[in-house]
């Protein structure tokens, strides 16, 4: 997505969010005025409907109308500017009568999306007043519910801390430099204060529509212009963010024909896919990517093969039939919400088979929700961070499966029954498989160890990440640039764990050479650590198909032995 488009999508979302605060206050004021704080008359509840509708029309819909009428012309201009840069006849680069009609039709269509949700939430708010009257609900409870229907967890509150969090999120939501703090504030808001109120509300839908309508308007107008110019190839463009869909990750920068795109759309499914036209809904709700027209004859792009099924993620797996395994009761501290979130995070990292295994063996003695992951085999203490992420140099991040990594160590020791020894460091088949996998790569023996050649690691690095340059300034003199160096940006969730597996094969030199995730050279000075870390990493990514498949392509024999071990443990 272009910077302009990205900015417009964010700005529109922000404007809609701001107007919803005014709406929240106005609706509460109107309900208080009409009822005088007493819910006694059902007739009054019905009479309130036109007044609430007027408030919604005058704030929310007026703002949507202003945005669409004033701002969407900027999107059309952005599309035309892009066409202006293409080597196509100039008649396709300007705004035509047909274009104007198309733009107006698309604007009308966008506005109707806002009208639909306005109508829907008018009913929700009105039902709240009516039902509260019938049920004799306290007035304050009803007001709180109305606020929730409009702004969800971001509603105004009597708690200063909640308001501070909400203000912080709203003020910094679109500031990339504060992404991590905003995510933490959102997490806190949901888990500590309002986990039961994270569901449907006007803000959620309105901000999504504000964002998606910009993208969809752009998509529709772009395709209309491309067809007019006779362009039939498209490149999937945009940037990846922390929670980019696997579909978007797999498709990024690919050039396909319209026919290929439609074929893929009709035959494939992925998590988060929306219904609609592939050029309009793209990856799904809130997708930040666009199909931009191109022509391979221009010499900039070549037509790619359709991604294989393995590259494009499969449909979501069927709902699990094995119950989640609770471990968060072992946390040394933490609120109910934190414990719930810890259990959810842990179980989301496990396959059904792993859940069965976890439930069969003794659990750790104590678990700590701690910044760094550690497992102490002697005292059976597990430390891991809830919702851990590997932060890339550009501030984006990918999911890191730390809880299941450390639990993998626990299972490795616990199921082995030899004090201070793990199965992986003692099992000859597992150890041999690692050596066999290493020897698939070019290398030579040095000091009794098979060392894989650097050129092979270069290729492996391409599988998991890209380079980013970091500049480091002195902490003591912030204006002094000390050095700048290349480090790794991970491509997808669980790739930090895959990087760590490669680092184990390289005895820590992969991290040293490529500035990527790993335990490092000094850690692997001790025998048994390569095997234990590979086991724990495979255990942690077993439920992430993409990361696991990459690992499998690197160490197929080891994965085979690992799976045999899981089968054994399941049957024990």
């Amino acid at each position, binding site marked *: 997505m272009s910077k302009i488009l990205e900015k417009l999508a964010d700005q529109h979302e922000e404007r809609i969010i701001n107007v919803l605060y005014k709406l929240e206050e106005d609706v509460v004021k109107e309900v208080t005025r009409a009822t005088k704080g007493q819910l006694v008359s059902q007739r009054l509840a019905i009479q309130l409907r036109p007044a609430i509708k007027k408030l919604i029309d005058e704030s929310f819909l007026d703002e949507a109308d202003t945005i669409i009428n004033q701002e969407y012309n900027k999107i059309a201009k952005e599309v035309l500017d892009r066409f202006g840069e293409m080597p196509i006849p100039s008649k396709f680069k300007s705004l035509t009568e047909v274009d104007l009609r198309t733009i107006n039709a698309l604007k009308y269509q966008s506005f109707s999306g806002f009208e639909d949700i306005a109508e829907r939430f008018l009913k929700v708010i009105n039902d709240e007043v009516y039902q509260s009257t019938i049920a004799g609900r306290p007035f304050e409870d009803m007001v709180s519910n109305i606020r929730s229907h409009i702004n969800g967890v971001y509603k105004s509150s009597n708690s200063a801390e909640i308001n501070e969090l909400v203000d912080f999120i709203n003020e910094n939501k679109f500031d990339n430099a504060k992404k991590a703090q905003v995510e933490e504030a959102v997490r806190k808001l949901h888990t500590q204060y309002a986990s039961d109120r994270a569901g449907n509300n006007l803000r959620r839908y309105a901000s999504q529509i504000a964002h998606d309508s910009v993208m969809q308007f752009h998509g529709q107008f772009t395709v209309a212009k491309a067809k007019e110019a006779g362009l039939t190839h498209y490149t999937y463009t945009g940037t990846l963010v922390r929670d980019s869909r696997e579909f978007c990750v797999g498709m990024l920068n690919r050039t396909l024909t319209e026919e290929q795109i439609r074929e893929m759309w009709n035959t494939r499914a992925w998590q988060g896919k929306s219904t609609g036209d592939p050029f309009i809904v793209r990856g799904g709700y809130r997708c930040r990517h666009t199909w931009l027209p191109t022509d391979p004859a221009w010499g900039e792009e070549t037509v790619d093969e359709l991604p294989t099924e393995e590259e494009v993620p499969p449909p979501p797996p069927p709902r699990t039939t094995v119950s989640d395994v609770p471990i968060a009761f072992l946390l040394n501290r933490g609120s109910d919400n934190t414990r719930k979130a810890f259990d959810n995070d842990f179980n989301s990292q496990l396959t059904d088979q792993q859940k069965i295994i976890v439930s069969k063996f003794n659990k750790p003695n104590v678990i700590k929700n701690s910044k760094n992951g550690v497992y102490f085999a002697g005292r059976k203490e597990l430390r891991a961070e809830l919702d851990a992420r590997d932060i890339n140099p550009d501030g984006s991040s990918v999911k890191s499966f730390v809880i299941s990594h450390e639990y993998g160590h626990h299972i490795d020791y616990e199921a082995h029954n030899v004090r201070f020894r793990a199965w992986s460091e003692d099992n000859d088949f597992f150890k041999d498989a690692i050596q066999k996998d290493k020897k698939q790569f070019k290398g030579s023996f040095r000091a009794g160890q098979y060392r894989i050649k650097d050129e092979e690691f270069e290729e492996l690095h391409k599988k998991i990440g890209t380079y980013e340059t970091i500049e480091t300034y002195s902490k003591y003199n912030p204006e002094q640039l*000390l050095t700048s160096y290349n480090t790794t940006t991970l491509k997808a969730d669980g790739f930090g764990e895959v990087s760590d597996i490669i680092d184990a094969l390289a005895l820590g030199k992969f991290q040293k050479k490529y500035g990527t995730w790993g335990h490092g050279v000094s850690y692997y000075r001790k025998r048994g650590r390569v095997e234990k870390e590979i086991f724990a990493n495979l255990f942690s990514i077993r439920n992430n198909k993409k990361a696991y498949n990459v690992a499998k392509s690197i160490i197929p024999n080891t994965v085979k032995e690992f799976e045999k071990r899981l089968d054994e443990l399941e049957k024990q």
Partner: protein
Amino acid sequence: MAFSKEERIKKLSKANTSEKLYNLYEEIFGEEFPVVESLNPNYKLELIIDAIEINKKVKPLELPKGFNI
């Protein structure tokens, strides 16, 4: 051999890869970068740069038996 602050900063400015930074740490402190409680490459490289700037080596993590990161 002890390096002056000027020499360390000059060497730092030339260390433009992760590997060169790890090697520089070894050159300045005469020992390899120790085990720390993180797998994050950028955290480790920041520790290295900071250590070289202030000429104070990174404190190694105590590793009791059966300790796994």
